Structures are given as C-alpha cells and as structure tokens.
C-alpha cells in the first residue's frame, strides 16, 4: 500500500517535474508545476507530515502555482508556443546534473537500510507548538519577510513612470 502510493506519487512528481522543465508551452509548464507540487504534498502525506501536507496544498498548489499560472496567462505573448524553450547550455547543465547525481549516489546508498520507526505522532500540534515556542522569533521574521515582499509587489506594480531613462 505504502509502496504503491510512494511509487505512484514519485512518478507523478518526477514526470510532471520533467514536464515543467521541458514543456514548450509555459502555460503547460505552470499547470504541470501544480501537479508536481501536489505530488510532493502526497509524499509528505506518506511520511506522516500532515501539517506539511496541508501547508503544501494550501500555499504551494493553491497559492503559488495558481499565481504562476495567472502570470503566465498575463504575460500571454511571452508564453506563446516557442520553437525552443531550452537554451544553449543544456549540455553543460545536463552534465552537471548527471555528475551531481552520481556523487549523491554514495550518500543516498548509505541510507538504504534506514527504515521508518513504527510510531508516528500527529505532527500538526507539535509543529504548531514549536513554531510558537522555540521558533517564535523566526516566525516573527517570516511575517516581516512577507510584508516586505508585499511592499515589493506594490512598488513593482505601480504604474510606469513618466519618463523612461533607458
């Protein structure tokens, strides 16, 4: 059961991720991103991280992916079908990725016998507690960061200035 869930979610996640980076149409990519993020959420669920699962679905899938899609549609012309969505350095990038994966293999293999302990705890409460206690200051900071980001959004989306210096 778990294995089936894991492998199917993995397949969804990785395949849609490949779609995100390879799709010629940016809109497709954005939609696949949503799917991929949902798949990751599913993986969280298989790990028993239900708080994370909720957060992932709400924020990522419901927020980020949707926002991304909007922007893609907004910037319609830019996401038109394009001859090529991949630039000149794909070979180098591929090499880097391949080499890195082979390097990571050693680390990944070292955990091939690590299985999950039997007991799982409901994480939501625990995470909530830690956020308000040990990580209270970071929690404050994240709110400041979000405000700053909002200010940024406001600044950037002001109407264009009268004169263009370039």
């Amino acid at each position, binding site marked *: 059961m778990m294995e089936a869930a894991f492998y199917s979610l993995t397949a969804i996640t990785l395949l849609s*991720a490949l779609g995100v980076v390879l799709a010629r149409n940016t809109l497709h990519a954005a939609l696949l991103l949503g799917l991929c993020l949902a798949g990751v959420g599913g993986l969280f669920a298989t790990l028993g*991280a239900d708080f*994370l699962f909720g957060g992932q679905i709400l924020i990522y899938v419901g927020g980020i992916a949707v926002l991304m899609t909007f922007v893609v549609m907004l910037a319609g012309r830019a996401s038109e079908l394009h001859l090529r969505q991949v630039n000149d350095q794909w070979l180098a990038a591929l090499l880097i990725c391949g080499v890195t994966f082979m390097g990571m293999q050693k680390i990944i293999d070292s955990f091939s016998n690590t299985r999950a302990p039997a007991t799982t705890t409901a994480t939501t409460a625990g995470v909530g507690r830690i956020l308000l206690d040990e*990580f209270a200051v970071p929690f404050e900071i*994240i709110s400041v960061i979000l405000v700053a980001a909002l200010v940024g959004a406001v600044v950037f989306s002001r109407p264009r200035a009268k004169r263009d210096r370039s």
Partner: protein
Amino acid sequence: MTLSHYLAVSTALFLIGLFGALTRRNILGILMGIELMFNAANINLAAFNRFLHPSGFVGSAVAVFIIAVAAAEIVVGLALVVAIYRAQGTLYTEDIHLLKG
C-alpha cells in the same frame, strides 16, 4: 520504503529543478525550476524528520518556514516579472542584456 528512496526522489527533483533553472529561456521557467529545488529540500526535511529524528518536529517546522519563504520570493519574483514584461514585452533571458561585461 527506506530513506534512500525519499532521498533519491528529492535529489532527482532537485536536479530536475536545477536543470530547469539553468536551461529555461523564460524567466518564469527559471522560477519554476527554483521552486522545484525548494520542494526537494522540503522532501528531505520531512523524510529526515520521519526516518532519523522522529522525536522532534524541527524538520517539519523548518519546511514550513521554507514554504513561506518560497511564497514570499515568488511574490517578489512575479511582481518583478510583471514589471519587466510591461516594460520590455519579453521574458526571454537573452533579451535582457543591458548589463554585462
């Protein structure tokens, strides 16, 4: 399921994201790639929390922060993208080359 499986998935996701970030010609594509990389980290955190350090919640908590930061970054990023698109009508990186040398 062993930890290796999850690590393999996260690594793969990370590298796919990396590949996307390095090769997409469209700024939005790069952004999406970076998002994938963030998610790979989150999988790691959740998996480590579950497999190696089940007694605490630090991993999950950190993942929550990462999700929030990613959201903040996306907000800024998308605002910038929109601004650039309005100014220049393009989102292709090779068209954005006033600054170089």
